[in-house]
């Protein structure tokens, strides 16, 4: 019996007209193998000097040479200091407190140095008011060892000496002074008292000087609104730890909104204590980090956000505004308003709409609420830029009115939407000097590049918030022939004094108020008397202030809301920021917390709009993500941008990240993404836009393609505040059992165990707790882990193959329903096979989001240890799961048997390999490596060690001192980097330690508990405050 069944190997064969099938019948490959290309040309073959015989000779020789060379051990030289500095002991780390103030990131940090070279940035716990170190700040250390830094001052591309530069510039400046032509200083925001004083002196010296402050990502309207209301050019500060109700309209305040740094306060209010936690309502268009953490998120287009804010004002303060909102949104705004009113002074409203009226409305609402969250005493000084001033400057330059332009910390040819105007203007100036660390877009066009040092090689100061000062001190001698901006200005005004002395003088006269400078330098931070003084005055004036605001701003705001078919919101990623650090491979490879995509920026679009525009995302055969390209047009400027369909993106809105698409001053590998600044017209982050499908398919490097947990409850456990308060913990923190003899038994039952236990009761036993309520997914821990553990960068192509080496990842899960519980029920009730796809697609509209940092769980009963054929991974009494790299033979059994997928395999040698031309491929970049952690080679497995080098060091320090280890001394890189207190690390055998509390907490659970691995990493159940009023 012959059958007519047709067996087919690929979908292509089902298509009868396919030419490919026909071709494949005859040939192995569809396309001709292009052998002719290199064998066809007989002449060139003959002309080639390398014959087959030569080739064999070379092979033979090199093989012999290599094997001979291998016989001889290398001679290792050891070169001690001639005169060893007193403070340096080889092998012992020194810490220096300093401050980063690069115009975008401002934070007080500690710098760890080894043998005189900085190797890691850590948090300065003395300076929490100055904002914690985010992922970018943690990664900024790589900038010091950037091989593409400008190493000498340059004049039109050729190296000159500083003396030449000084003479040229001073002569020019003097002649301009005489001719009366304007000299312009175009700088980043310094927020530096000493620099302000210095610039004032510079103005005095040269007369016709204009100082324009330019923030690439503008906060100008907020500054204007604050200045109009409070008379000071600053940004309003908020302390979210005091908040009960937070309403945010388009403000990504856990990201880079107003310079960031609000997350630690926010996290404090998010941990349920005594049955209470804050409620956070977010109205936004892009799915931001903040929206992902909100209790309730309402997707809204930017124009609707304006109306929503105006309406919120009318509901809270009074008055009426016109404008229409969808019914559900209207309802949400009403509820938010009533909750705000109920919270009274513990309520707060913030907005990210870059609009004078919007910002004024927010200030008015907060004033009306008499919000304690709104901290008027210490406004933020880290943004000073003015859009208008920059615009005027560009126009003046174009008109040839500007004689000299001196730039520092800015890159207008990259960040200005009208960069071509600026370029033209630059040609019209008689003198252009760019102070820069890089030969970037702008400095390459300037006449002179004044090579500047990295902030780790400089002196400096910053008043990050009013009255909160930070000092910057060098942690290494300048690597190159560089001189900082302030030092140079001092030279140019003829002052023979170092900037260090200048700062000391400024601080001595106007800041320190008699306190010792060295103490401030040691701490890196100083809280001035001004902070407390102003607090007194403002609280006093508060009481008198009871006037009801007019509501003009709200009406104007509502009137200004003009909806467009598609509105674009430009945003910054927590990884890349404004793009200054685009040549930083850590940040490039850092996956965006929301899309989990690295090495790219992209247009985020809702599923609805994407379908309408025929834009699609698909998973290709190797499991990676591909996306369509779209032409994005704003006011005649068109960019070709890859598209990612973003769950939760408001319909009618799209998003695009700034900071990518750099073209100069960085390695080819880092030239990723598109430059969205071209669309940042009039410094407005909201633009009307048209989007259309175009040819091509973009290859993304996305590390997480499965977006939901498909109903598996023991990954992220989540509950609502109501249930948390009223029900017993077994209800919301259910411990799943396992089946034994057809009965369910607890995982703690001895029958549920196939492993023998370890006795961990003596000595130290380390545990790590991660509070899912406090974790905002910011990723500072990820970069800190890279820095501490020499985690290699593998590049976009490898990430696409899921060969990323991150020891610590932050999983992001969407949930289609209000709770994950519901999702699970759906799974049970829906017919087979349907639920998985349905859940994934359902999550597109407005999902709930949860973050979960996952590193090696250090199981007490570790499946990986059981399967290693060479015992390369083994258990310790201290609870850490050890990995002996030198013993590993690379079978990868362990990775396959790990239920958490936290083991990483070195597919290649990532150091000293030209194929991976990142920081580990040059001598300069390798200076950042931690000498206490081995750099892994090809073919071995690696994973989180729970920072055993750090715990061992702590133990040794205690042994040397002959004392017990105190609680809080044990830290891992991630727990030390966490600004939000989400990660607590400690010794559970120390009964007084904080970690013991965490172990006994009702919210504690283990990841995939039913597997029975008994991890030493635990999580705290996520609680959401869903109480509607």
């Amino acid at each position, binding site marked *: 019996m012959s059958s007519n069944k047709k067996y087919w190997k690929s979908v292509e064969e089902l298509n009868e007209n396919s030419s490919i099938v026909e071709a494949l019948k005859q040939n192995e490959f569809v396309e001709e193998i292009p052998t002719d290309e290199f064998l066809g040309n007989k002449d060139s073959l003959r002309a080639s000097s390398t014959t087959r015989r030569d080739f064999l000779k070379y092979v033979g020789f090199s093989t012999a040479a290599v094997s001979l060379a291998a016989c001889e051990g290398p001679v290792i030289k050891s070169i001690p200091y*001639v005169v060893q500095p007193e403070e340096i002991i080889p092998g012992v780390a020194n810490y220096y407190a300093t401050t980063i103030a690069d115009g975008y990131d401002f934070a007080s940090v500690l710098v760890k140095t080894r043998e005189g070279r900085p190797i890691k940035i850590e948090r300065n716990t003395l300076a929490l008011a100055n904002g914690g170190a985010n992922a970018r700040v943690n990664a900024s250390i790589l900038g010091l060892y950037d091989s593409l830094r400008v190493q000498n001052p340059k004049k039109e591309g050729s190296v000159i000496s500083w003396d030449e530069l000084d003479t040229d510039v001073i002569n020019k400046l003097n002649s301009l002074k005489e001719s009366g032509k304007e000299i312009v200083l175009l700088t980043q925001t310094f927020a530096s008292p000493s620099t302000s004083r210095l610039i004032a002196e510079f103005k005095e010296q040269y007369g016709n000087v204009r100082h324009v402050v330019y923030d690439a990502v503008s906060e100008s309207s907020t500054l204007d609104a604050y200045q109009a209301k409070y008379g000071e050019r600053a940004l309003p500060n908020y302390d979210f730890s005091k908040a009960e109700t937070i309403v945010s309209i388009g403000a990504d305040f856990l990201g880079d909104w107003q310079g960031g740094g609000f997350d630690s306060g926010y996290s404090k209010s998010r941990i349920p204590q005594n049955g209470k936690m804050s409620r956070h309502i977010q109205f936004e268009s892009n799915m931001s980090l903040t929206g992902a953490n909100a209790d309730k998120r309402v997707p809204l287009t930017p124009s609707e956000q304006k109306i929503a804010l105006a309406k919120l004002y009318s509901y809270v303060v009074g008055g009426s505004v016109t404008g229409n909102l969808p019914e559900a949104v209207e309802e949400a705004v009403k509820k938010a308003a009533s909750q705000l009113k109920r919270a009274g002074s513990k309520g707060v409203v913030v907005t990210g709409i870059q609009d004078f009226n919007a910002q004024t409305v927010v200030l008015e609402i907060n004033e009306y609420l008499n919000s304690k969250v709104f901290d008027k005493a210490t406004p933020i000084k880290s943004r000073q830029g003015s859009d208008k001033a920059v615009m005027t400057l560009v126009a003046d330059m174009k008109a040839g009115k500007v004689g000299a332009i001196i730039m520092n910390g800015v890159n207008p040819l990259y960040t200005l939407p009208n960069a071509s105007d600026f370029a033209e203007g630059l040609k019209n100036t008689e003198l252009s000097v760019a102070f820069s660390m890089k030969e970037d877009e702008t400095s390459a066009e300037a006449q002179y590049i004044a090579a500047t040092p990295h902030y780790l090689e400089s002196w400096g100061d910053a008043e990050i918030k009013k009255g909160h000062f930070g000092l910057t001190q060098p942690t290494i001698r300048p690597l190159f022939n560089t001189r900082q901006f302030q030092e140079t200005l001092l030279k140019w005004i003829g002052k023979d004094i170092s900037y260090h002395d200048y700062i000391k003088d400024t601080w001595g006269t106007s800041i320190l108020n008699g306190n010792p400078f060295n103490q401030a330098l040691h701490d890196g931070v100083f809280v001035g008397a001004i902070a407390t003084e102003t607090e007194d005055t403002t609280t006093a004036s508060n009481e008198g202030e009871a006037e009801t605001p007019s509501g003009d701003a709200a009406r104007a705001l509502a009137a200004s809301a003009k909806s467009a078919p598609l509105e674009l919101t430009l945003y910054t990623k927590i990884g890349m920021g404004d793009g200054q650090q685009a040549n930083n491979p850590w940040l490039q490879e850092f996956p965006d917390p929301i899309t989990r995509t690295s090495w790219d920026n992209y247009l985020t679009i809702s599923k609805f709009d994407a379908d309408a525009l025929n834009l699609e995302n698909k998973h290709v055969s190797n499991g990676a993500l591909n996306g369509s390209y779209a032409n994005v047009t704003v006011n005649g400027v068109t960019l070709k941008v890859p598209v990612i369909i973003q769950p939760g993106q408001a319909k009618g809105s799209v998003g695009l990240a700034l900071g990518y698409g750099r073209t100069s001053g960085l390695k080819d590998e880092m030239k990723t993404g598109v430059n969205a600044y071209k669309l940042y017209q009039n410094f407005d982050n909201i633009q009307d836009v048209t989007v259309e499908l175009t040819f091509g398919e973009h290859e993304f490097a996305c590390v997480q393609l499965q977006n939901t947990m498909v109903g598996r409850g023991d990954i992220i456990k989540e509950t609502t505040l109501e249930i948390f308060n009223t029900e017993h913990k077994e209800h919301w923190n259910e411990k799943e059992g396992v089946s034994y003899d057809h009965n369910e038994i607890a995982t703690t039952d001895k029958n549920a165990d196939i492993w023998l236990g370890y006795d961990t009761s003596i000595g130290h036993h380390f545990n790590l707790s991660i509070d899912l309520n406090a974790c905002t997914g910011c990723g500072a821990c990820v970069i800190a882990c890279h820095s501490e553990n020499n985690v290699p960068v593998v590049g976009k192509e490898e990430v696409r193959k899921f060969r990323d080496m991150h020891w610590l990842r932050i999983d992001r899960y969407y949930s289609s329903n209000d709770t994950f519980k519901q999702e699970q029920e759906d799974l049970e009730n829906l017919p087979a096979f349907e639920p998985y796809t349905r859940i994934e697609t359902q999550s597109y509209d407005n999902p709930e989001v949860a973050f979960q940092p996952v590193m090696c769980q250090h199981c007490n009963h570790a499946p990986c240890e059981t399967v290693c054929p060479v015992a390369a991974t083994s258990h310790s009494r201290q609870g850490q799961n050890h990995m002996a790299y030198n013993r590993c033979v690379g079978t990868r059994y362990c990775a396959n048997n790990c239920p958490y997928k936290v083991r990483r395999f070195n597919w290649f040698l990532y150091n000293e390999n030209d194929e991976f031309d990142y920081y580990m491929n040059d001598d300069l970049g390798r200076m950042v490596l931690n000498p206490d952690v081995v*750099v892994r080679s090809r073919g071995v497995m690696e994973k989180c060690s729970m920072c055993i080098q750090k715990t061992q060091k702590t133990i040794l320090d205690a042994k040397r001192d002959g004392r017990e280890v105190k609680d809080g001394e044990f830290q891992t890189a991630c727990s030390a980097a966490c600004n939000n207190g989400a990660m607590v690390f400690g010794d559970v055998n120390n009964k007084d330690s904080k970690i013991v509390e965490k172990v006994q907490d009702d919210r504690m659970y283990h990841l995939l508990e039913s597997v029975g691995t008994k991890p030493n990493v635990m999580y705290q159940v996520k609680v959401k405050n869903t109480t509607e009023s």
Partner: protein
Amino acid sequence: MRQVTHCRLNMGFLRLSLIILLAFSTSLSAQEGDPAKGKSLFNANCAACHQLDKKMTGPALRNIEERIANDAGLDREWIYAWIHNSAGVIKSGDAYANKIYNEYGQTAMTAFPQLSNKDIDDILAYTAQKKEEPAPAAAQPATTGNQNQDGFAISNDLILGALGILFLLLAIGLYMVNKTLRRFAAVKGIDLPETQRTPLWKAFAQNQFLVLVTVIFLLLSSAYFVYGYLMQIGVDQGYQPVQPIHFSHKIHAGDNAIDCKYCHSSARVSKTSGIPSLNVCMNCHKSIYEYKGETSLEYSKEFYDGEIKKLYAAAGWDDANQQYTGESTPVKWVRIHNLPDFVYFNHSQHVTVAGVECQTCHGPVQEMEIVQQFAPLTMGWCIDCHRTTNVKMKDNGYYKKIHEELSKKYGVDELTEAQMGGLECGKCHY
């Protein structure tokens, strides 16, 4: 051993002749001071900054009285005043005093009010002695010892040779007996049976059991040697590289008994023991500019002095003018003890916490003219020690609780490092 005693004998002679010479010269000098007493006073008070024949922190002092008298016409009274209170003399505006003061970088000489005029007379008597010409080194190569040793070796050979001859004679004897017996047989007409012998190799090849045993034996023994060869790869026990400066640990740590941790100070607090920076060397070598200890043919005084010169060149020390030139070149030492990158070893853990002697791992460094790697530095070697060595827990607050609990668990009072968890992979590999 003999060689050494011989050397010491030589030294003895030298010293004796020196003393005799000294005695003579004393009687010759017409000073009223006592040079022998002066010498000890000089060494106790002056030698930190002065030498007889070499400019140091202060000027060379040989015949100082005579020189001062010739140069500036100053008498002994001036010298008394100067030594008792040099600052006072300078202040008084004395021309010569100020000249000296400025010449020596304006560092005033410490005042010695405790020295009496008599003491100063003694010192001056000592300085007025004639310079010793080094006695021609009685460097008779110590060959006798060597000969003896050689003789011993030869006697061994002789015995072996005698034995060999004996065996040869025996073999010849046997052959002769055999031959004679055969001849007798032939004479008596006895027919000796001609046996068809199979050759030995054939017999061996036919005996399968023997072949098997031999093959197994060969395989095992070759495996043994291959294994032995492989296991010594990367083990550099006895590694003794030539260093850019011949630094003798024997002289420093042995003869002069300098504590290891004086130079390798970071061993107390750091993971590395630290190669001393040149400023540590210069602490002593600013005043020790020549070698005065025992010498041998290979390592003569000139040789050692040359090495000190190398140090001066590297540190940028101008010995003649007693000042730093500022032109220094770091010394590129060859590292002897190399642990692979994947091993974490911390000196302070072993030196400070455990109190392990440096020599336990580094061997008798104080006897090494050229340092060599003493221990194999293999993991087995580390582990052996961790298994057998008891942890020094006494009087260390850190161990108090752990000791209590662990000794209860294992039922012992003293705990080894292995029982502390010192055999876990991750304790050293991360």
